[in-house]
């Protein structure tokens, strides 16, 4: 069944405490090549049947209204993935 992937990230200007904690932990584990980390969310919406333009539009709207908080997050990606 096809899925629609929605990626949501904290807005760049907003503090991301989770990313901050991860970037602090990485060097302790020997991973020294990353200068910053941000943590966002990935949603996979399963569609029964075909992904029509209308369904994709629904996913985009759900991404903006329910899946992300526009005050602090951006929807960075909405795409169809065939399973």
């Amino acid at each position: 069944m096809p899925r629609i992937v929605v990626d949501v990230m904290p807005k760049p200007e907003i503090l991301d405490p989770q990313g901050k904690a991860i970037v602090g932990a990485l060097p302790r584990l020997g991973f020294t090549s990353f200068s910053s980390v941000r943590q966002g969310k990935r949603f996979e919406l399963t569609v029964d049947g075909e992904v029509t333009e209308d369904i994709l539009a629904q996913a985009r709207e759900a991404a903006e209204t329910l899946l992300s908080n526009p005050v602090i997050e951006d929807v960075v990606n909405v795409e169809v993935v065939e399973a």
Partner: protein
Amino acid sequence: MTTSAETVGKKFNIDTVENAAKTPDTELPWAELGLKQNEFDEVVKVLGRRPTGAELAMYSVMWSEHCSYKSSKNHLRQFGEKVTDEMKKDMLVGIGENAGVTNLGDGWAVTFKIESHNSPSFVEPYQGAATGIGGIVRDIISMGARPVAVMDPLRFGAIDHPDTARVMHGAVAGIGGYGNSLGLPNIGGEMVFDSVYQGNPLVNALAVGVMRHEDIRLANASGKGNKVVLFGARTGGDGIGGASVLASESFDDTKPSKRPAVQVGDPFAEKVLIECCLELFKGSLVEGIQDLGAAGISCATSELASNGDGGMEVELTSCLLRDPTLTPGEILMSESQERMMAVVTPENVAAFEAVMDKWAVEYSWLGEVTDTGRLIITWDGEVIVDVDPRTVAHDGPVYDRPYARPEWQDSVQADAFTGSVQDAGRPSAPAELAAAVTELISSPNMCDKSWITNQYDRYVGGNTAMAMPDDAGVVRVDEETGLGVALATDANGRYTYLDPYHGAQLALAEAYRNVATSGAVPMAVSDCLNFGSPEDPDVMWQLAEAIRGLSDACMVLGIPVTGGNVSLYNQTGTTPIHPSPVVAVLGKFDDVARRTPSGWREDGQAIYLLGT
């Protein structure tokens, strides 16, 4: 880590003091920054020249209603005037510091304060409420105390309004999310639904902390040559608000990045900051300390300097930034959370750094205390601020706002009791009484509060002796002796709307009773005065009356106000909220084992109704 290389050499149209003196006629965005013409003129008069961009940023935030109390100051004086020596005998630190301190005996002291985070909690309920807890807890730490509990008086819109769930679920989750992560038990609060709070919820937060007398710290910078350090989170563009007018400071083509409209809290950073500060206090490593809240570095530097005996010099490019595009004015105004500023003697610098390193807290040495009486801030060596810190922190404008009893007050008071909306009469027959009681107890405001309180940790610390569902929260301070404190907060916006003078007194009386019935001796008061716009004479009257009522009642009860907070402009459009003075009373137990929980305990006990 002491400097932030990326900020050095950044190209800004640096408006130096020298430049300001030479270009008196430069247009400045003082109105956009919230200053009035007379206030701007006053700044020019104080400085003897036009302010630089950075100075303008400082004066505008520090002279705001929020930081300067310009509309309420004249009235708040009553809290300091209507006190007897008897009332002051246990007051170790009074109004004016970050929070008042009360003597508990046995070398113990307690500090508590209540503050509002109303409008941020409407915009982004989770983060707004969370950072409200964060802010009040930092106030308590900055007194030298270990925070030991929090409380959260809340007011939301109508329970059946579609937006109420968004605000309420977010705010409660935010208070829990932040407070629980700090390891502070939540020992009580309030929850009221009323449509007057629909577009303007009240999210007040109280924190209480305890310390040994010798650990009391004040916000002042004294001792020439002592170092000034900023530590905790990096400074970002938070709280400067949307498209900042200060962007005009920016000179290069790369536009400054967008400034966030809301702040995101990092409770983990704050928890680490608490432990780190306590370790600093234990080692006597700081001379003075100040939390960074509203007005950020502007407030911290000017308050530390003006409370000290000299001056201060600060190099702003040393400040660690989260966003390298910030201009000097924006750095001064930023309200990034989880930051503290301290004054450290040169001998203690190494020990201070060791504590920071232990807790992996970032810090930057910004400058030092001087004996010039001036607050001087440089950017890469160039002077961008040169002010008398008192003029920024203390000598802001004070207004005698006009006020008058509203014309509609009589008609509001004339309204008869109604058992229900339909029924204008006073119920008398048993059936009517039954119906009125049923209606009363089915009010959402009488509901079980465990949906809220179950989201809060009341056990952490192991010293909570009473919490939900009791009328007061009780925490033990000393495990050996059982010495402890009780706290209750109360407010009734509807009573206060009907009669602000008595309404405020009733709030105090209720909190006082809640503390007294727990078995504690009431000792001190803190309040958060949530009102509409002071520019509305009706509202100003409510505020003036409430303060008069509260201060009179404190005299009668013999307990002093040790601190508090004024939150004005709580309104939707031009409709103000009901005047809502939230009053917190703190009481003392010699031994919390003597507390009395509410509720029937055993069969066969007699029931008495006391009072009138």
